[in-house]
């Protein structure tokens, strides 16, 4: 026996143990992968041996390799073997390996259930402990379900060591197997009062985590926890309890009231920062909750406020601490307060600005976040000034870029709400362009454009600044690193061109824009340069033609002609196109100039009209003009067969006009005027139609004269043309003076008022520090709202609907292009409805009527069960139809596709309005489940216009071209059912006949030989339909094949119908 053990030990000696493995890996730094692969081979050998010690050693090594990132999932079964060893040494290693390597999808986990159960009930507490620890890492829903009872028993184990672990692991079990919560909860609650503090804290832990997920079930435990909180001195437990209360107070505000005292005590007394931080956080989170849902008595509210102030004070202490961690957390908590109580944070502005100087970048970024919410009209300039200083100092482009975006964010937030002086803002933007290597050129550019377009009063100033930028463009393009910033030139060129009338020295700017160096800029910027050079040129011509000296104007044209060829050669297509277009134009102008013709007026007309910013969603809200059907084909779909083209008139002759095109030709002048009036009225009523202010439009349309160009006087006390010198500071001063002046004036006014009133109180309000409202912006932002209010729409709609309901009486009328229908054999329940179709007759009309023509039913190829129905609505009355709803009752086999969230009976609102005597078309989508039957859609709701939609089987067919060989293969395949039909007395040429089938039934001709043709079509659900059409005299025979006999029968019936009409 002893010999055997010795022998085993000697065997083991030659194995590598973990330490050898680690050392080996460290000695084979160059070929680690190779070394490890040999080790893994050894391990595989070791795992094949019977000796459990060898196996455990191998598994231990594998655990190490797993950490290094090697796949060891192949050894999962060996791990289970080691886990089930009776020796604690090996069991421990086995469980460790399992907890590191197993995850939910490891299949051998199923095998472990019994082993774990055995270990859980082991007399040795460490066996149990090891099993519990392992289980906490790899517990699966199955394991949780099977072992929940065993673990629950362990919660009342005699040894606290086991109880503690069992309580904690219960949380994992609850997560995996929620049903276990209910039976286990009483015992868990009991553990809150366990004599052992470790078990107690474990129970607190678990309940706290549970309560965070679903607080309301744990409200009843509040008194117990309250007791624990006041008695416990263990900070770990206290933190958890406070966190738990943080989750409970929103549900029970009275709890908050009770918590005030103990929390305040803790805040005052504790020396543990973690506990203090937790208390402060909870108070902050609870403060707004306490404030809003119920109104506490005044004294309490005051008390709450004081407590809140205490927290803010404590946070200040945290931020002032030299420990970076506390500083960071303090700022983090401040940002939470900022959302609800910006005022409380604003008073600590000094401190937060100080944090911007911190050497830790993450602290600086936190402080930046806070600044965003702290700005007001009053302090914006000051804060931005400070930030600009940081931009200059900052090393590292990421932080600088972050600063840049923050500056722009802060300034532009809520529609430039806090900017009182846009000259200052523009100069800030210009200063930002001097940043080395920023990526955010486009951001600056879009701000420049936005401000210049929307703040009309600033244009003169902006143009002057942009002209300077263009003049100094070499500063931006010179350095390769500065690639990003040249985006700014895009904005500069556009602003200078568009508002060129404000330019001080347009000639100089034009030259700057046509410098050869420009050709090194990115293409899209060059394109803007070229286009705006043309605008500038137009303005220049205008100025110069005003003078008596004509040579100046000619010189300008010559400059353009000299410089533009550079751009004509550009590799960028857009630059090329614009340049050659403009070059030709200028050449033509030059010719005219030589003949002494005045051209400026006409040239300037090219660029007349103001470009207004358009809200991003505006387009959607403009109604589709009458007669324009965005979904209808302008031409017939291209898949029509050629035979149709031969004599299309003959085919369409008997058809109703498909679109309103025909009508339009008949419209006379009177009619047009009437319509125009109607459209104007409609637009006037439409809140979403952007109306150009009539004045500005007229200015440009009628007389583009100089006197109409708004000239704004600017105060040139500021040197405008000092490139490379920051100027925004001066605005801070100027703005201060302006505000001072305003304040004085206001005071005067107030005094006057007071005098007038002769208010006897005689108390003088000291206007002291000016309030937000007192500061009036120097420029107004032209607020083209980016988002149009949605609520307006709904309210108007309601009114109109009521009105409409009064006015309107419906009329039933329907026109169908396939009017006739025979009951199909397989029609089933639909055929009952079918009978009613033809019997409906137009009803008399009283006040107004609306007609409604179903025009086209098309399958949707993308979705085999969808059919698109195009409907033309026509208003035949004199009244304006504001809203219409469209509804189809769902039948067994079809369903109207409604927007998400609407009920099964809600109608679709038609997205346009109908002025009198107009028509418009809309589409609706229906889901169809089985397509082999024709069906009728019936809609009869309320007093509205009722209609029927008739779906023939042909409308489910989609014209699909098919090659003859593929067609032959299809016929040979033998999957298709055969059927045939004979048509007598068909009196038309064969190609007309084919065209008719193609048109009405969506077939395509595969091949035609004399009086014989093969045709093909496919249904939206992929059924093939093949036809062989033969004619002899007046008899037409159609042999048809299809993989769905019912569909085929119905299609043939429909074809028969078509021809029986003629």
């Amino acid at each position, binding site marked *: 026996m002893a010999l055997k053990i010795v022998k085993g030990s000697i065997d083991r000696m030659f194995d590598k143990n973990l330490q050898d493995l680690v050392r080996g890996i460290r000695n084979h730094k160059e070929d680690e992968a190779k070394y490890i692969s040999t080790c893994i081979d050894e391990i595989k050998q070791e795992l094949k041996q019977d000796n459990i010690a060898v196996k455990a050693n191998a598994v231990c090594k594998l655990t190490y390799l797993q950490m290094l990132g090697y796949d060891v*999932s192949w050894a999962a079964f060996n791990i289970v073997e080691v886990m089930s060893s009776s020796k604690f040494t090996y069991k421990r290693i086995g469980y460790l390996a399992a907890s590191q390597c197993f995850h939910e*999808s490891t299949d051998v986990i199923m095998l472990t259930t019994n082993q774990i159960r055995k270990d859980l009930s082991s007399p040795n507490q460490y066996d149990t402990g090891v099993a519990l620890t392992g289980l906490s890492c790899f517990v699966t829903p199955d394991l949780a379900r099977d072992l929940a009872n065993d673990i629950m028993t362990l919660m009342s184990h005699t040894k606290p060591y086991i109880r503690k672990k069992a309580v904690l*692991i219960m949380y994992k079990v609850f997560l995996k197997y929620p049903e276990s919560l209910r039976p286990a909860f009483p015992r868990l609650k009991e553990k809150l009062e366990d004599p052992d503090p470790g078990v107690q804290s*474990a129970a607190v832990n678990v309940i706290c985590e549970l309560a965070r997920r679903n607080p309301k079930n744990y409200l009843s435990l509040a008194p117990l926890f309250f007791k624990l909180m006041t008695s416990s001195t263990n900070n770990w437990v206290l933190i958890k309890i406070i966190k738990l209360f943080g989750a409970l107070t929103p549900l029970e505000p009275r709890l908050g009231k009770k918590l005030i005292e103990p929390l305040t005590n803790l805040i005052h007394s504790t020396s543990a920062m973690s506990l203090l931080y937790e208390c402060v956080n909870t108070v902050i989170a609870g403060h707004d909750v306490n404030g809003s849902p119920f109104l506490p008595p005044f004294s309490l509210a005051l008390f709450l406020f004081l407590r809140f102030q205490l927290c803010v004070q404590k946070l200040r202490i945290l931020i002032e601490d030299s420990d970076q961690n506390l500083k*960071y957390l303090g700022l983090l908590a401040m940002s939470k307060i900022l959302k609800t109580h910006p005022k409380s944070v604003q008073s600590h502005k000094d401190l937060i600005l100080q944090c911007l100087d911190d050497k*830790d970048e993450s602290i600086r970024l936190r402080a930046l976040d806070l600044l965003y919410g702290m700005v007001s009209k009053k302090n914006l300039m000051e804060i931005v000034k400070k930030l600009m200083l940081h931009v200059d100092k900052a090393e590292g482009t990421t932080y600088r870029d972050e600063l840049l975006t923050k500056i722009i964010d802060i300034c532009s937030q809520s529609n430039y709400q806090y900017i009182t002086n846009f000259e200052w803002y523009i100069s800030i933007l210009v200063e930002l362009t001097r940043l080395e290597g920023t990526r955010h050129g486009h951001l600056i550019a879009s701000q420049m454009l936005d401000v210049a377009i929307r703040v009309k009063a600033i244009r003169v100033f902006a143009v002057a600044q942009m002209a300077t930028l263009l003049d100094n463009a070499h500063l931006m393009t010179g350095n390769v690193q500065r690639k990003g910033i040249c985006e700014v030139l895009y904005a500069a060129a556009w602003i200078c061109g568009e508002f060129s009338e404000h330019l001080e020295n347009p000639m100089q700017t034009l030259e700057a824009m046509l410098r050869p160096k420009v050709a090194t800029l990115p293409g899209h910027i060059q394109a803007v340069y070229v286009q705006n050079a043309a605008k500038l040129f137009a303005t220049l011509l205008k100025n110069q033609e005003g003078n008596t000296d004509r040579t100046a104007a000619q010189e300008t044209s010559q400059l353009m002609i000299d410089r533009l060829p550079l751009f004509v050669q550009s590799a960028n297509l857009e630059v090329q196109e614009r340049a050659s277009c403009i070059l030709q134009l200028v050449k033509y102008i030059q010719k005219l100039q030589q003949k002494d013709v005045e051209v400026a007026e006409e040239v300037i007309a090219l660029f007349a009209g103001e470009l207004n910013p358009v809200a991003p969603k505006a387009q959607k809200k403009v109604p589709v003009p009458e007669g324009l059907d965005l979904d209808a084909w302008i031409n017939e779909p291209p898949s029509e067969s050629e035979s149709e083209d031969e004599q299309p008139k003959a085919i369409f002759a008997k058809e109703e006009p498909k679109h309103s095109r025909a009508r339009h030709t008949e419209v006379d002048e009177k009619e047009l005027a009437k319509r125009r009036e109607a459209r104007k009225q409609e637009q006037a009523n439409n809140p979403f139609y952007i109306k150009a202010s009539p004045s500005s439009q007229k200015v440009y349309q009628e007389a583009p004269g100089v006197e109409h160009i708004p000239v704004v006087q600017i105060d040139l006390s500021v040197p405008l043309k000092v490139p490379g010198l920051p100027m925004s500071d001066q605005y801070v001063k100027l703005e201060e003076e302006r505000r001072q002046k305003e304040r004085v004036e206001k005071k005067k006014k107030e005094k006057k008022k007071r005098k007038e009133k002769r208010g006897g109180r005689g108390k003088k309000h000291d206007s002291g520090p000016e309030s937000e409202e007192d500061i009036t912006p120097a420029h107004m932002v032209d607020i083209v709202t980016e988002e149009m209010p949605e609520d307006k729409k709904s309210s108007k709609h309601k009114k109109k609907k009521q009105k409409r309901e009064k006015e309107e009486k419906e009329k039933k009328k329907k026109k169908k292009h396939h009017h006739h229908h025979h009951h199909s054999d397989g029609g089933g329940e639909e055929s009952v409805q079918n009978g009613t179709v033809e019997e409906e007759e137009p009803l008399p009309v009283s006040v107004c009527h609306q007609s409604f023509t179903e025009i086209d039913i098309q399958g949707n190829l993308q979705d085999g069960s969808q059919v698109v129905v195009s409907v033309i609505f026509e208003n035949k009355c004199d009244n304006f139809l504001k809203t219409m709803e469209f509804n189809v009752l769902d039948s067994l086999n079809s369903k109207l596709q409604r927007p998400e969230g609407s009920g099964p009976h809600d109608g679709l609102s038609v997205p346009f309005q109908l002025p009198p005597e107009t028509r418009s078309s809309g589409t609706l989508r229906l889901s169809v489940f089985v397509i082999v039957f024709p069906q009728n859609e019936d809609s009869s709701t309320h007093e509205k216009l009722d209609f029927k939609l008739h779906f023939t089987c042909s409308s489910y067919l989609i014209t699909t071209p098919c090659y003859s060989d593929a067609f032959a293969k299809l016929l040979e395949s033998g999957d298709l059912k055969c059927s045939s039909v004979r048509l007598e007395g068909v009196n038309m040429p064969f190609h007309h006949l084919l065209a008719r089938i193609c048109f009405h039934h969506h077939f395509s001709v595969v091949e035609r030989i004399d009086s014989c043709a093969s045709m093909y079509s496919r249904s939206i659900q992929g059924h093939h339909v093949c036809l062989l059409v033969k004619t002899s005299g007046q008899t037409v025979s159609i042999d048809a094949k299809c993989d769905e006999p019912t569909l085929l029968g119905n299609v043939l019936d429909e074809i028969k119908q078509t021809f029986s009409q003629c």
Partner: protein
Amino acid sequence: MQFMLLFSRQGKLRLQKWYVPLSDKEKKKITRELVQTVLARKPKMCSFLEWRDLKVVYKRYASLYFCCAIEEQDNELITLEIIHRYVELLDKYFGSVCELDIIFNFEKAYFILDEFLLGGEAQETSKKTVLKAIEQADLLQEVRPHVVTLHFNSALFLIRLLRLN
């Protein structure tokens, strides 16, 4: 706590403990990303960072980084305390712990961690109790020459084994 990672200044992983079920691939990705992020931070920076939707708390002890990921509502400072407590435990157990101790006895490092944390929650706040439990469990273990082999060659090891039996 979602997981705990120990890694060296060179970015070598020394210990990992996951309290959330994730696939190996995800674990590797997270580890790589996090190790890079933490190593890139300057020494004077604070110990917290926001990473994905988690908060990461890390602290450097000598050449080892201890790094924990916690959830949004968790307390950063107590997590820092947990890290510190674990280091203290390792220190007591190994007697002024160094990186090599953790490399060569990595299973011990795990056992200590498992006695201290369970399922991501602190199970025992008393250092004494944790160490006692480890010692007790070690007593149960077959005497294994793990410490000895660090210093002696295999011949010595053989002699020792023979004497034992």
